[in-house]
């Protein structure tokens, strides 16, 4: 075909996107490895602003559909998309649902909301209900997959089972109304969509079964409930961290590092004292 484009012509329009995406990924990873609250909020703001409103780069249910037909955008014209997708898959396999915790613009938006909304408005769901509700997203995933295979229609799931279109600012009145209801509900139940409804989160939840680098647990975690109570994602159940639900928010890992709060260190200190005094 007489397209006759040089690599320079192909790369030039993509260079800025690639550079900014690389910077965003770097910020995400640095915030994750340093367990820094500040950097995490910086990453969340960048996720909403750049990945969301500027680029609308979110993993959509339509990206899950493409697993069924392996229909991919052309590589050389979509380099940033490939880098983004590679990062999502690789980071999930390595660490779990890092994407849900700080890359997804909608998740970042609801987490930022959660930081602003007064705590007294929040309803803490009973554990039983929370655990059952977490399965809903897998039901949503199964339903939209069946719908897609039967009809090959991408539009309906993209508009009505996920809110990610909002960053494109193109919605019908019905879509915006649904989103408004969802956001109001999120004021009371934190990260409602991510925890209970998101089919993309469900997909990454399945993938996170492969997680290579897991969160360390101490022997003391069998009896201690501090992390379980702190976890905003309902991902800690007794001694277990439920990988499907964990988005690597760092809250429990920051507690592990806190020698004043984590019983592991307190027990170690006591043992040390006994040893010294004996």
């Amino acid at each position, binding site marked *: *075909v*007489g*397209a006759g484009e040089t690599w320079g012509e192909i790369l030039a*329009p993509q260079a800025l996107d690639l550079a900014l995406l690389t910077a965003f990924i770097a910020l995400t990873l640095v915030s994750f490895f340093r367990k820094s609250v500040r950097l995490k909020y910086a990453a969340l703001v960048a996720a909403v602003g750049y990945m969301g409103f*500027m*680029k*609308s780069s979110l993993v*959509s249910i*339509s990206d899950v*559909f*493409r*697993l*069924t*037909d*392996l*229909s*991919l*955008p*052309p590589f050389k*014209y*979509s380099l940033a*998309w490939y880098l983004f997708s590679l990062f999502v898959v690789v980071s999930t396999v390595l660490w779990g649902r890092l994407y849900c915790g700080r890359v997804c613009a909608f998740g970042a938006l609801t987490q930022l909301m959660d930081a602003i909304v007064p705590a007294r408005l929040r309803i803490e769901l009973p554990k039983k209900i929370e655990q059952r509700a977490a399965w809903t997203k897998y039901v949503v995933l199964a339903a939209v*997959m069946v719908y897609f*295979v039967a009809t*090959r*229609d*991408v*539009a309906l799931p*993209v508009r009505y089972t996920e809110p990610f*279109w909002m*960053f*494109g600012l*193109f919605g019908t009145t019905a879509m915006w109304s649904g989103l408004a209801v969802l956001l109001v509900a999120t004021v009371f139940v934190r990260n409602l969509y991510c925890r209970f409804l998101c089919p993309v989160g469900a997909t990454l939840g*399945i*993938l996170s*079964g*492969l997680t290579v680098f897991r969160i360390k647990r101490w022997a003391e975690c069998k009896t201690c409930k501090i992390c379980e109570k702190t976890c905003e994602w309902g991902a800690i159940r007794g001694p277990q961290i439920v*990988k499907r639900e964990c988005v690597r928010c760092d809250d429990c890992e920051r507690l592990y590092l806190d020698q004043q709060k984590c019983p592991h260190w307190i027990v170690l200190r006591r043992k040390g004292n006994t040893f010294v005094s004996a």
Partner: protein
Amino acid sequence: VNKVTAIVLAICCGGVFAAAADRIFTTPNPAAELKRLFPAAAAFSPLGGTPLHFNAYAADPRTNPAEKPIGIAFWTTDLVPEEHGYHGPIHILVGMDLIGVLTGVVVTYDSEPYGYFSVEPPKFAAQFKGKKIGDPFRVGGDVDAVSRASISIGSATRAIRDASRMVAKQLLPPEVAK
């Protein structure tokens, strides 16, 4: 056990869905679309030839066998099947006159998640009417960019450009295709 379950699940899903994957969505009889591209045409040949195309005629060639075509229409999906948007090929019927000027394009099917604000609005298709095959077809230049839908717009534009140039090269006189 978790790992094995995840892998088995992934493979099963993949298998089931791959089986259902290969469906084709070309409009089998685009009579209305052809008429929009060539309002003056009285008749169209069936899809045929190499590359696959329709001929548009001012008078029915069955009553007047000497009738010469006034234009050509073709599917981008037949000409450049390898061109994909965000999710699969975007099906576009292109009309071209015999001097390499597009008489219009019609987007009949896409499965782009953001197709409804990128390639589906008539505004997108309208820009290609009157475009010459030698034009740059550059998104952000002579074709409007739509932010947050650059993959879809880019793919549809390249499909129209490359398919038109291919058809011109093979079916129109050499001085047109230059």
